[in-house]
């Protein structure tokens, strides 16, 4: 049973949820239009959760991704309003995220501070920075370059199948993350650091470099998420954008079966986890559950996921 849970992960849960919502909503769930909405809604969280997967695999946590997303979106939008530099706004967004992530990583790896505390601090500090960037107002830019990534779709079969660009980006991020985690030396080192940090150090792995890398990736992907949001909304508000996004990202990772103590997990699980969250939100609206009950149900799903995590760990070699 334990083996079965481990191998199949949460994919059956996702499929059951989809089927359940399909019948409860009189067949409205599996329509091309609705699936497009679900994919689009899942996109930003998937990108954040991919970064979070790297961090949690090392046994850490990144609470600052929501704030970094806001600051990156603000930085990108601010640049996009400067005519000569407008074309660089995407790059600026992503690099802003990377910068904050690397600062997190350096504090954790070099000063040996606990990840929870460092990123809790940057959750607040970077939020302040995001507000500063827009002098505490909303920045609009209706003519932002590359707006298509926020609202356009990639047409696969003209008139029949098209995928939102946001979802294409999210899938690419998952694919690249998988390549890094499973096909590179760095990937094995990430699992090793999460599995047994002291043994990793003795085995000659540069633990500090691995840690800076994972927090850097998490920041970079939060920056990308910020750019995606900015392109979708043509606007960003330093105070409101990305509030409590870190919680959805962490939930997706945990739902995906990545162990909170590190060393065990996969990026595909994270994708499934992010889709479960999106399906849950979409489905509950479709069947007319009130906003208040949606909170209650989503919260219970998080607790259920952690219970599953414990159950999973009992089957592993680690005690």
């Amino acid at each position, binding site marked *: 049973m334990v083996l079965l849970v481990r191998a199949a992960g949460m994919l059956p849960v996702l499929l059951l949820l989809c089927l359940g919502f399909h019948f409860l909503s009189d067949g409205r769930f599996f329509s091309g239009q609705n699936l497009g909405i679900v994919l689009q809604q899942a996109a930003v969280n998937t990108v954040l959760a991919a970064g979070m997967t790297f961090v949690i695999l090392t046994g850490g946590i990144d609470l600052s991704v929501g704030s970094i997303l806001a600051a990156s979106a603000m930085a990108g939008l601010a640049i996009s309003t400067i005519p000569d530099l407008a074309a660089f706004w995407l790059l600026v967004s992503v690099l802003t995220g990377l910068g904050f992530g690397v600062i997190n990583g350096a504090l954790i790896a070099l000063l040996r501070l606990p990840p929870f505390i460092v990123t809790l601090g940057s959750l607040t500090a970077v939020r302040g920075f995001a507000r500063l960037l827009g002098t505490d107002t909303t920045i609009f830019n209706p003519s932002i370059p590359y707006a298509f990534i926020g609202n356009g779709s990639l047409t696969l079969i003209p008139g029949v199948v098209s995928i939102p660009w946001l979802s294409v980006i999210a899938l690419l991020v998952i694919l690249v993350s998988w390549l890094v985690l499973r*096909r*590179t*030396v*760095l*990937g*094995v*080192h990430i*699992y*090793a650091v999460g*599995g*047994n940090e*002291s*043994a*990793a*150090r*003795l*085995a*000659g*792995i*540069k633990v500090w470099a691995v840690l800076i890398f994972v927090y850097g990736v998490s920041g970079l992907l939060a920056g990308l998420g910020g750019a995606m949001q900015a392109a979708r909304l043509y606007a960003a508000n330093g105070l409101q954008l990305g509030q409590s996004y870190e919680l959805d990202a962490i939930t997706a990772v945990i739902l995906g079966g990545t162990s909170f103590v590190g*060393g*065990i997990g996969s990026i595909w699980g994270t994708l499934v986890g992010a889709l479960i969250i999106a399906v849950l939100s979409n489905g509950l609206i479709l069947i007319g559950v009130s906003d208040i009950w949606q909170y209650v149900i989503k919260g219970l799903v998080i607790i259920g996921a952690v219970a599953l995590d414990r159950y999973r760990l009992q089957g*592993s*070699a*680690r005690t």
Partner: protein
Amino acid sequence: MSDPILEMRGVSKSFFGIRALRSVDLTVHAGEIHALMGENGAGKSTLMKILSGAYRPDPGGEIRIEGRPVRIEGPLGGRAAGISIIYQELSLAPNLSVAENIYLGREMSRSGLLARGAMRLGVGPILARLGADFLPSTPVAQLSMGQRQLVEIARALHARSKILIMDEPTTALSAGESERLFALIRQLRAEGLAIIYISHRMDEICALGDRVTVLRDGRLVGSLDKAEIRADTIVRLMVGRDVSTFYKKDHDPAAGRGHVVLTATGLADGRRVRGCSLTVHAGEVVGLAGLIGAGRTELAHLIIGASPKTAGHIEIEGRPIDIRTPGEALDAGIAYLTEDRRSLGLFLDMSCLDNINLAVLGRDAKLGCILDRDTARDRASKAFTALGIRAANVGVSAGVLSGGNQQKVLLSRLLATTPKVLILDEPTRGVDVGAKSEIYSIIDNLAKSGTAILVISSDLPEIIGICDRVIVMRAGQIAGQMERTAASPLSQEDIMALATGMEHAHA
């Protein structure tokens, strides 16, 4: 002499069919310092844990305290029976005050509120009796190791214990602190306490002991009266056994000894290791013997850069080399097998494949970062065959393997780096007998192929069985070394004498 305060008759203890204690008798009188001796693993700590209630003895034996049969059950059972144990690593809460520690678990309260003042007053007389130079309100964190030991003793006296067991109490103490502790132990003896004193240090035993009981392989092998206590007698009792044919040693150091590979000069860490120098030649197996706490593992950690050196330097094949991290040690050709493979060596959730290849992934990688999975699989399969690792396939998690197979997986990781120097820290700890013998063969073959090998071991027959030369450490320093020659084989007595600091006249 008075009636015995503690009598153990035929006490045995087995763990999963392995007998850690075989029908041991022990008699301790009030007003006596009873020394308990034996090599590491002889059964001393098992015996102690039975007295403290941590282990339950096998049925059949009997324990009497003041003539009445008792059953000691659970962690509080020992204290209830009047027995207190002071462990090597003290069990105080450093964040609490002296008084709070002494009352820990039995706090005084007044209508549900902690009665701090009354507790402080309550411990005053005991601290005065012990000659303590600190206040009941002092936080334990501010005390020296010697003072902390006093707090532990005060706690035992406060619980009205009649039997006090001390496990290597002087390990962390300075010479002055040890002297004060001895005076106090003699005072407690005069007050009528029975003291069971566990130590490896021969001089302490000779100075303090009224009676010495020696354990070996879980059996009581001798009990000496005050008049019979002599260091050489004790050493002979502790080690006296044959070295079987179990050990494999075909390589010939006299014929094959190559150039010096590893030279360490004056290594120190400012704490546990003080000015240690050693050399290891190509094709030579050098044993590093010593008691637990002598600083052997700490010295190995200094060599591989796992902890920072305050002095000394290292040369590989005559070239000075600056090693600051274990990674740099691997690059320099020094591989280290940890004594604690589960928490410092293996990645239990990762496959044998990844565990074996971990140290060389970067070297094998395509384009500098892409895993070369064919090479990795090939190397793991070869290691499985070469070292006889028994597992379904290379994809199995390391955590599910037996101790011996885990050790071979870890060894394969080190060998993948083709080290010039191999430091093996307790290579056969927690390994079954069959795998032990296989590991000895592997070590022998590595020596034949010219690897310089340093083996840290607490198992003296093992050291004697596989090593060409033995370096003995005592209290953070090199106490001496001895070489195996045809005329004079290595002897356990000589090693123990050096390790315990007893000058043993060698015939």
